[in-house]
């Protein structure tokens, strides 16, 4: 699928050397990458299908430097693309040919651990796992745990509102952030929230989280830490059909149990995982559920019993309960390795990320199966079953002419299907450039115009990460009222002011 990005500004590119010199004046030469070969390292993020070498990359170390860079770019009309660890699966950090890539990797320090208020103040370039590492010796952890947690940064988590397998019970990034320091596109530094709950005024904290780097650059983050549950046990349950597994998920939740994690895999994913790391998954089932219960020992024992009963009533073919930490981790090993496992049975795979109302799962899986036949491409499904977030992995071979395009078209059809059954385009990977042109499947012109007006309130010149999220770039002046319905007023019979 040819991706149309904003037309590069030739005047900006022609003036590159002067900009590089000015950036060096802010962060010193060591903080600027301008050499073509070195810039190659930044040409894509986790969505490697799209590549673009940035005009220049800059690696600031202080919020004042970020502010000066933003002021400089604002003054010069230069676009800026922020980047954390570059693990985005939606192309959120895809550079621009005429843009500065603002690399936040030097913001890599945890600033303060406030044990008594149970929060961590950190720079945005610290990894998600780094936050847990900083507090786990005292029995705490940072709850959202995206699969990429070893590499992805908390700044990027803010941009994408990252989730993870535990978010059904413990929430997404947005539910765990208390405060932010943000540099706005014009270089202004603001603070929202702090160590208290519910910041005053409009919820800028909530708006910034998940805004995909389009509204501001996060330079400091305060997050909550949680006490690690004393016990966790997992159930590994095999079902003859995905319907039976889906019914079990509904019954568990309907009974009032909120598991710490609840994951489903279909037959191709189970077989790939078993071949890859031998977790001991049953191979004669169509769907496998991993249900993890965490909490105090009494609670876990009680709820594991409840889930066992429910699973049997749904016709489970096999059921194992972990009896040790090693066994629990073994249950998870296959699921956590699902992506590399699928990577081993196929030269390439394309990971999708729709969310659906859970009861639609059997329908959606059936239709994905039909699409799979139509496109002649295999697919394996892993599913955050508790919250309806589906990750179909489309298998293809990029060396076969036309297969990437077919995979992308197949992926687009899956996401449209998710919307059609009442779900959404993306649960946790973000829109970025990947799903940008599908936004119309979920939102109409007015919905999108309102979102873009919010962007304009932060960035009237559209210089911060343009070309992402929205299918069409509008200048802020164009975003007036969308519909006048031909000058007619609806409901002429209504009493008027």
């Amino acid at each position, binding site marked *: 699928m040819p991706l149309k990005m904003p037309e590069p500004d030739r005047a900006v590119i022609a003036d590159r050397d002067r900009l590089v010199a000015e950036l060096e004046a802010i962060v010193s030469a060591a903080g600027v990458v301008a050499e073509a070969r070195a810039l190659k390292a930044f040409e894509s993020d986790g969505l490697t299908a799209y590549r673009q070498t940035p005009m220049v990359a800059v690696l600031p170390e202080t919020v004042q430097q970020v502010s000066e860079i933003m002021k400089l770019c604002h003054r010069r009309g230069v676009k800026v693309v922020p980047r954390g660890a570059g693990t985005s699966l939606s192309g959120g950090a895809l550079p621009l040919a005429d843009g500065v890539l603002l690399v936040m990797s030097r913001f890599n320090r945890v600033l303060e651990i406030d044990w008594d208020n149970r929060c961590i103040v950190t720079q945005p370039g610290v990894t998600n796992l780094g936050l847990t590492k900083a507090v786990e010796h005292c029995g705490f952890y940072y709850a959202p745990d995206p699969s990429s947690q070893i590499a992805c940064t908390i700044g990027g988590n803010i941009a994408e509102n990252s989730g993870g397998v535990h978010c059904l019970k413990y929430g997404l990034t947005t539910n765990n952030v208390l405060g932010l320091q943000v540099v706005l596109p014009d270089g202004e530094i603001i603070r929202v929230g702090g160590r208290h709950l*519910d910041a005053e005024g409009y919820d800028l904290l909530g708006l910034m989280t998940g805004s995909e780097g389009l509204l501001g650059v996060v330079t400091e983050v305060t997050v909550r830490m949680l006490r690690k549950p004393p016990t966790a046990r997992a159930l590994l349950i095999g079902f003859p059909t995905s319907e039976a597994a889906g019914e079990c998920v509904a019954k568990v939740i309907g009974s009032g149990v909120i598991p710490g994690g609840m994951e489903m895999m279909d037959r191709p994913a189970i077989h790939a995982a078993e071949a890859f790391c031998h977790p001991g998954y049953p191979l004669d089932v169509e769907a496998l559920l991993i249900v993890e219960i965490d909490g105090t020992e009494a609670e876990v024992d009680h709820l594991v019993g409840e889930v066992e009963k429910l699973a049997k009533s749904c016709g489970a073919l096999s059921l194992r309960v972990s009896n040790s930490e090693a066994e629990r981790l073994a249950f998870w090993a296959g699921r956590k390795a699902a992506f590399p496992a699928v990577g081993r049975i196929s030269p390439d795979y394309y990971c999708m990320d729709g969310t659906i109302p859970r009861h639609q799962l059997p329908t959606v899986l059936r239709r994905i199966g039909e699409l799979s036949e139509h496109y002649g491409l295999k697919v394996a499904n892993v599913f955050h079953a508790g919250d309806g977030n589906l990750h179909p992995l489309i298998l293809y071979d990029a060396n076969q002419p036309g297969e990437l395009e077919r995979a992308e078209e197949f992926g687009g059809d899956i996401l449209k299907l998710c919307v059609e059954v009442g779900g959404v385009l993306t649960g946790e990977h973000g829109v970025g450039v990947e799903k940008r042109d599908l936004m119309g499947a979920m939102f109409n012109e007015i919905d999108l115009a*309102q979102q873009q007006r919010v962007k304009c309130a932060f960035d009237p010149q559209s210089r911060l990460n343009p070309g992402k999220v929205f299918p069409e770039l509008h200048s802020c002046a164009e975003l007036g009222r969308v519909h006048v319905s031909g000058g007619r007023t609806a409901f002429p019979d209504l009493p008027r002011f």
Partner: protein
Amino acid sequence: MTESHRPETPEEVGALVREAAERKTPIEVLGHGSKRAFGRPLKLEITLDLSRLSGIRLYEPNELVMTAGAGTPLAEIAAALAQNRQELAFEPADLGPLYGGEADRGSIGGVFACNLSGPRRFKAGAARDHLLGFRGVSGWGESFKSGGRVVKNVTGYDLCKLMCGAFGTLAVMTEMSFKVLPRAETTRTLLLLGEDDDPALARLRRAAASANEVSGLAHLPAAVAKRSALGDVAGAGGAVTALRLEGPAPSVVARMASLRAEVAGAGPTAELSDDDSRALWREVRDASYFAGRDAALWRISLTATAAAPALAGLAAKLAGDTSWFYDWAGGLVWLEIAGAAQAETVRAAVAKAGGHATLIRAPLTERAVTAVFEPQAKPVAALSRRIKESFDPGHILNPGRMYAGL
């Protein structure tokens, strides 16, 4: 002369707002009006009453989701949820009685527009954490939507967060989808009697950091405890510190034992079981100790460790009788002052502690001249104004309800 419109459909809301936008006539947006005295006073001639946009449109207990019209009574929603042993986990506060109104009169739209959350907020999140999607009409007169009906959704900006706590100044929400959760099978509350603010709050913070999954952490100093309707609390003859446990019965029993071991040596204790426990946390949720009175009332969100010293300092400085209690292990303080609200004194202390103060109740004349919501730093205020104008360029929706010019 006021003019009240009670539209029955979202389309009618759209038409009314469009007309108001064209005529540049500001309107007061209301759910059921139970919290109308919350915020800066509006002197508008036209009200848009959403009470007829009522009804539960979708409720799927197994999917943990409900969709309802903005004017649906909260009581109707709570009753439907209770039938399936579910609830709104953020415990929406019923502030009506604080303003002299009846209990249980609010709408679901009002709950989200005011982002009202109760004692479980520190654990389960705020109202804003439970709104999944909405349909509404912006000040442009345009009908639009954001979010969806699923929990995990990062498609586009999270405008749900912006709507929560915007007090109807950005858009008129007509319908909303929100997360619902199982209601705990059992609840029990441990009461510690006679502790002073500082040691009591330190104990609550330790409990919050423990593995016992405590879901309510409040401290009622003696002056407030004696106003409780519960004999165990009012009759304690001093301060009461409350710790709530919820969950399946075997788990609650085990955690209560563990919690008791943790507070051993704290002095006399008492325990409330299901009904009494629920009644106590309703009082805490609604700050009902201050209902039926008309003294100035502040709701203060602050850094938990700073709460007790801040209040001790304030009590010494403020003119007039004061009484207060703490929720969220000290992260939330309700402070009543007999006499003037004394915003400068209160806000200076809160700023030092890290947080913000909202003047929940004060006579109209005082709310007209006092900043009801915490004043914001200049660049944040300017940004908020640009956001307001991106939704409501003509400033026709509840203009000035939160801040002048917003």
